[in-house]
């Protein structure tokens, strides 16, 4: 099957894959620069098609959009992580304690840039809105949702966490591919227990958005490490990304 996975580039570029194929192809995309370039170029081609079907939107739509935009803060650009030099060598024993210093550093960066920890304005969709609110949207829309984005070696990871829902949405994009036998693992920094694994928080390098349950209300931060397949109970490597979740 992998032999003709490249052939999915066109269908992927115009959203004609089902969810499973899409995930599979995105995993492939993470490793295939050729396909990435092809998808980009095919999207340019697809973007010509609406030219043949333009329609004047109602003036009221413009007013609504511009009014709503005024209440929503644009996401920050992806900034290089400050000075967390991810020394790749692992040392199982020094797991928990070592997190504290970088977390403080991360908090400082957040404070300076105002980049994270900002409560999102809830999306005030009008009454007759779409049929389904996804689990991810519920978290995004939570009044206490906190959004933090961190750059991960060319890619990025964004966490939207809600203490009231005890859920977080983790979105990754362009994470560096992992050697076989390794996964990314998501952790919450519990105020009492230190780093605790988030159930279901194992991720590949493929772009993904997942909603996870975790004791967010009791967490001061979150982090991502690289772990052996199957995950670990305690972090065994330095974090590739740290997220401060304290009310900034």
């Amino acid at each position, binding site marked *: 099957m992998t032999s003709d996975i490249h052939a*999915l580039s066109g269908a992927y570029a115009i959203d004609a894959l089902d969810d499973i194929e899409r995930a599979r192809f995105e995993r492939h995309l993470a490793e295939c620069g050729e396909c990435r370039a092809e998808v980009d170029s095919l999207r340019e081609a697809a973007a010509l098609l609406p030219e043949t079907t333009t329609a*004047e939107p109602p003036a009221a739509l413009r007013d609504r959009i511009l009014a709503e935009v005024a209440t929503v803060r644009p996401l920050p650009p992806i900034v290089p992580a400050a000075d967390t030099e991810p020394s790749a060598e692992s040392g199982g024993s020094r797991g928990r304690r070592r997190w504290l210093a970088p977390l403080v550093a991360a908090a400082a960066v957040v404070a300076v840039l105002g980049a994270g920890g900002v409560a999102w304005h809830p999306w005030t969709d009008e009454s007759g809105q779409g049929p389904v609110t996804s689990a991810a949207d519920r978290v995004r829309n939570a009044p206490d949702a906190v959004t933090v984005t961190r750059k991960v070696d060319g890619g990025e990871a964004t966490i939207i966490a809600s203490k009231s829902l005890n859920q977080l949405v983790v979105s990754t994009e362009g994470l560096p591919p992992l050697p076989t036998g390794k996964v990314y693992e998501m952790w919450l920094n519990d105020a009492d227990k230190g780093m605790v694994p988030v159930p279901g928080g194992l991720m590949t390098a493929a772009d993904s958005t997942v909603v996870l349950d975790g004791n967010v209300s009791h967490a001061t931060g979150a982090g991502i490490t690289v772990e052996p397949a199957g995950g670990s109970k305690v972090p065994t490597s330095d974090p590739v990304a740290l997220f401060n979740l304290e009310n900034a």
Partner: protein
Amino acid sequence: MDQIRPVSPGASSSEGAPGAPALGELLRLSSRGDQGAFAALYDATSRRAYGLALRVVRDPAQAEEVTQEAYLDIWRTASRFDPDRGSALSWVLTIVHRKAVDRVRSAEAASRRDVTYHQENQPVEHDSTAEAAEASLEARRVRGALQNLTEVQREALELAYFGGYSHTEVATMLDLPLGTAKTRIRDGLIRLRDAMGVGAA
């Protein structure tokens, strides 16, 4: 700030059309919270965005919702636009298209479509909104380029892009052997790309 920028018709060189850099600049300003720039971006792209949403979801009220959701996403994530990967127009319309497809698929999940969609939606006909665009020179160029596609390529591409159908659904609708619709879609897009000279391959 509030003047309406000329609409940049789709790119005609690998660097993007005249006007494409302007859209990229408007996105950049939007990412800093410049609402005037965002309004100009909206004015320069909304006929395509709304027309696309309307074509996919068909219901004007839902098309408005999709368009609104998409522009909010565009506002929120403008800082993530990467000019090295493509034009601003393509970035904007990719977001709109994804929202529109998500909408028809979730509506479909709620009330599962069955084989009757075959008749209802088969050839993507040109509706009145398409007629309104007839005057556009660029639209004529795109239509011309689409004539270079084989019948099957064009049908597969239009059903997938404007119909919001997956490639396996398209294969069934066009009585193609399973697995070949994706190839037709890709081949069609490549022909369109090469005929219009967009997207440095």
